[in-house]
């Protein structure tokens, strides 16, 4: 095991990693920008180093400063958290060359999965479905129709030169294909002087389902089930849950098997997440991308599986096998997470940095709060707006929803705006309660509210 782990991140995930280190008996070193001196992750680490001014590109995105901090504090490993340098293959290489263990997969694997085309090709080669379509441009409408028949309707006709919604037309069936193709092609010709089009299967009302995977140096490859992250606004997840209310045991098994095939094929190590689109009928899934790091929403998996992903990451990086209790894991109950952001949900989600006059977080049975803030803390303007994660865990989805509702109602934050009232609306909505929401739900809901 390592003796000192440097945490190359900030905020709640830095504190999460520091807590895991403490429980493992490993010392932790916080790095921080001048804007983060008051963050609880700095207070609770065993040691801390200021690495630069507030802006990330002068602090948390500077490999040289982070490595220097590791050197002067004698750290033998670096946990990158999520965001910042966590999926930076070059940073992983620098760590290696400095004899500091990067807690994550190899630089090579990060690079492979970081490139969309390579990742997609790797998935296809291992029988993991990707959204099917034409190999590049199609010659004309007739050729396009042939492809469309092969991949199955509905399809999206996309001009290679298209953009901003132009040169893009859906075709729901054979009848409308030709006219839609010509419309797309002509529009692209007119706008971009290039009418070339390709065909892609259109996944209607898709769900964002992701699989948590783990792999160690001892031949263990496992997945820990899925998370449903369909509740998102502009690709930003708002609420996540485990398990998904959509996925059947049969589909879960198929997706789990596909996920394991993929990570075995690339000789993956450490924790990772494979993101899929799933159609509304929950019969098909399509590989989107793989995140070669811990995810923000990892706690919902931790609660249901009774395990700790951060500790497993550290164990695996130190060459130990995945814990016994994780290898034999059985899911129990249901977990939901709300990302509490310092944003004004009733003013187009504009960021709301500033001083928190009062912070009263909910407590009691089944309530977990991961946060680096407290009463009197000032949210700096430099970073993303997430200030806390509220995770609830209960024996069933129904009870978890009731608990989240209770916990959100107890949460009292004064001085800044947060997304809590909006999350209360969602939690109370019949669609959420019924588990009927896809990745377009929030946008639709906001549009409807605006019309009222």
């Amino acid at each position: 095991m390592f003796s000192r782990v440097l945490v190359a991140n900030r905020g709640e995930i830095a504190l999460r990693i520091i807590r895991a280190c403490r429980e493992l008996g490993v010392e932790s070193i916080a790095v921080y920008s001048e804007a983060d001196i008051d963050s609880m992750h700095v207070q609770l680490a065993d040691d801390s180093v200021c690495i630069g001014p507030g802006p990330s590109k002068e602090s948390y995105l500077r490999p040289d400063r982070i490595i220097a901090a590791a050197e002067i504090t004698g750290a033998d490993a670096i946990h990158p958290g999520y965001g910042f340098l966590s999926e930076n293959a070059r940073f992983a290489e620098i760590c290696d060359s400095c004899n500091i263990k990067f807690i994550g997969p190899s630089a090579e694997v990060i690079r492979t999965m970081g490139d969309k085309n390579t990742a997609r090709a790797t998935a296809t080669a291992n029988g993991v479905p990707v959204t099917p379509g034409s190999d590049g441009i199609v010659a004309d409408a007739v050729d396009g129709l042939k492809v469309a028949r092969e991949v199955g309707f509905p399809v999206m006709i996309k001009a290679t030169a298209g953009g901003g919604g132009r040169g893009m037309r859906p075709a729901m069936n054979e009848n409308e294909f030709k006219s839609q193709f010509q419309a797309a092609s002509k529009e692209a010709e007119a706008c971009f002087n290039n009418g070339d089009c390709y065909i892609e299967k259109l996944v209607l009302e898709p769900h964002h389902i992701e699989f948590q995977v783990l792999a160690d140096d001892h031949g263990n490859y496992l997945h820990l089930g899925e998370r449903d992250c369909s509740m998102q606004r502009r690709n930003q997840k708002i609420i996540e849950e485990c398990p998904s209310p959509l996925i059947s045991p049969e589909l879960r098994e198929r997706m789990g098997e596909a996920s394991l095939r993929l990570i075995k094929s690339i000789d993956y190590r450490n924790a990772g997440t494979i993101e899929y689109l799933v159609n509304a009928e929950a019969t098909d899934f399509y590989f989107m991308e793989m995140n070669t790091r811990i995810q923000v929403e990892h706690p919902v998996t931790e609660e249901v599986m009774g395990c700790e992903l951060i500790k497993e990451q550290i164990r695996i990086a130190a060459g130990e096998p995945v814990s016994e209790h994780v290898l034999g894991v059985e899911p129990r109950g249901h977990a939901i997470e709300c990302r509490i952001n310092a944003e004004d949900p009733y003013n187009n989600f504009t960021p709301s940095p500033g001083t928190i006059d009062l912070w009263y977080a909910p407590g009691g049975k089944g309530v977990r709060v991961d946060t680096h803030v407290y009463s009197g803390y000032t949210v700096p303007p430099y970073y993303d707006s997430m200030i806390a994660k509220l995770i609830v865990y209960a024996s069933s989805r129904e009870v978890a929803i009731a608990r989240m509702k209770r916990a959100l109602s107890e949460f009292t934050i004064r001085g800044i705006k947060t997304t809590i009232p909006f999350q209360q609306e969602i939690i109370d909505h019949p669609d959420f309660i019924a588990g009927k929401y896809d990745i377009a739900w929030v946008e639709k809901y906001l549009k409807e509210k605006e019309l009222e």
Partner: protein
Amino acid sequence: MPPEQSLNNLSTTSVDLTEIRKIMKLMDEHGLSQFQFEKEDFNLKLKKGTDLEEIQKLLRSLPSGGGQAPAPVTTVAPALGAPPAAVSEPDAPAGEEISSPMVGTFYRKPSPDDPDFINVGDTISEGQTLCIIEAMKVMNEIKAERSGTITQICVDEGTPVQYGDALFRVQ
């Protein structure tokens, strides 16, 4: 009922509650946190929110590492609760601070056998090398951005420094 009690206290003075409510409303509207008004023998002070400085100070004084594990002895981050050593001593030399632009190890000379780049009392000119900070096996020369006289060298030879640490004082 404490709200009652606190208002009771107020009502024993001759202050017009309606006036105060108006002021409080104005404070809300304009995001004021404090209102103080003195006139003859009348002194009104309204303060909103918690005493944040106090809370922060208390939280900052949390024992690093919870006081549980034996605290690792490094000279990098001063124990947050303890009073800092240098810089703010009452007899600290005057002058402008030159702070570290990077994280690394501080050296006053290019190699062990060489003389120090500078000493207290030396006159320095813009662009002159003051010290080296080693980071990732690279020796970074730190150069003066202005001319002046060195009044203090704040860091010992071979000591780790973090971003923003005071290195020298120059007058």
